[in-house]
């Protein structure tokens, strides 16, 4: 049995979980179904949403907040951070617009999480 803290919502349930031979998972301590899904992924291939910033060429808004549009493998976060450090945004993009594709690293893309470049720069 492994002790986990479910990060799905602010409740942060303390889980005790172990994989079963049939590829499922035994969980206690969860207060909703999401805890079961979380435990299974966490024990097999932990996933996280990565949030960060990228540089822009606009002086009034030097950094644009971004995130991955889905959860990505936890172990890939460093590689994605290195990709982000090389990006400079020089176009006015909106909240939700794609900033980069993660194709070479994992599935998914990077999206902007604010509209700041659309107004006042």
């Amino acid at each position, binding site marked *: 049995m492994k002790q986990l803290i*479910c990060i799905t919502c*602010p409740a942060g349930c303390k889980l005790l979980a172990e994989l079963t031979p049939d590829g499922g998972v035994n969980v206690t301590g969860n207060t909703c179904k999401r805890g079961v899904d979380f435990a299974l992924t966490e024990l097999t291939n932990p996933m*996280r949403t*990565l949030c960060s910033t990228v540089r822009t060429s606009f002086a009034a808004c030097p950094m644009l907040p971004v995130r991955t549009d889905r959860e990505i493998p936890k172990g890939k976060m460093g590689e994605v*951070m290195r990709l982000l450090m090389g990006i400079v945004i020089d176009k006015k993009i909106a*909240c939700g617009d794609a900033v980069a594709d993660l194709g070479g690293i994992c599935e998914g893309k990077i999206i902007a999480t*604010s509209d700041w470049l659309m107004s006042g720069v």
Partner: protein
Amino acid sequence: MFEQYDVAVIGGGPAGLAAAIASSKEGASTLLVEREGRLGGILKQCVHDGFGVIRFGEKLAGPEYAQRYINELKETDVQVSLLTFVDKIEKSKDGFTLVLVSAQGMRRVGAKAVILATGCRERTARQVAIHGTRPAGVLTAGAAQFYTNILGQLPGRRCAVLGSGDIGLIMTRRLTLEGAQVLGVYEAKSIPSGLPRNIAQCLNDFDIPLHLRKTVTRCFGHERLEAIEISDVDENMTPLPGTEQIIECDALILSVGLIPENELAETLGASLHQVTRGPVCDQNGQTEIPGLFSCGNAAHVNDLVDYVSESGEAAGRAAAMLNSECLMLNYAEISVDNNFLYAMPQRIDLSGSPEEVIVYFRSRDERGKTGFSAKLGDQVLLKKIFQTLRPPEMERVVLKLPPGVKAGDLVRLEME
């Protein structure tokens, strides 16, 4: 004759945005005053996700959460005044007079009701007992977050974090991702202040140690921080001589608590609650000064932005419907037993015969399975079992008010 509004909202963060939208939707002419150049308040620099799980059923980044409200605000006819500072607010015959300062100069504005959505401020190094020099490199977690996320400047390469509040934990992860080394998080209490999920995803994910019952007692360095002294503390959080340990670092990040910002409320004579440090409020955030409302983190420090928005909406609706001719406020009181740190609101405005009231509370100590009850005389209004209660986590309950409740009644909140 100067500009006149039904409702003036001070602060364009999540509480103020929700308040202004709600006020305008009720048909009130509304002014929103924000001192910065962009709306969104502190959410602008909270680039991490996890916002809006309750409100939208999604895990949004801070700026994304703010954007949803900013977009909604654009659909209303709220007058927004950016880069504008409130110099003072005075009580007038039919409401309030605000003195506003901006690049255009000083102007006076009238409002029948004022909503304070001024948020909270971080405790600084001056409010915790750290001896030694005052070098650069000692900064609050919020300041470190501003440097990192808004300016794109790393505040340090080798950092220590004092205090285990959520912002400190979030910044630990953020600095680590940006390539800084975080040596550890030091917490004087015996339990962490932040949410368990933030301990998991911000510290454990990156193998960053959390040291409980330890604090920073001294800073070293002339121009720039060079090292800090860490000491063990006893159960009263007093440092124990002989346990000192020197750690070399170039930044000390403080996450040692938040205090509601209530300078304006105090100048108007609203009394502040001893524990929340926000004004004594009713369920709509109305303070003891009729027509003056408080919401969000200015009223009490919330754990989730979703509740900040909820309290902003309640204040916005009530302020818009405020009718100066029928300010016959009649109140029931809410009291808590010793097991509570506080409950919000402290009183219930019975005008308009509310059928239910939302109550937020925190427990004084960490507790296991606990029975919560709300009573009016012998009548039980609500009974609920909580599996765990922790002071860092706010709880929310909805009390159904019986038709017979009258002014002067006492609603008692108890734990067993």
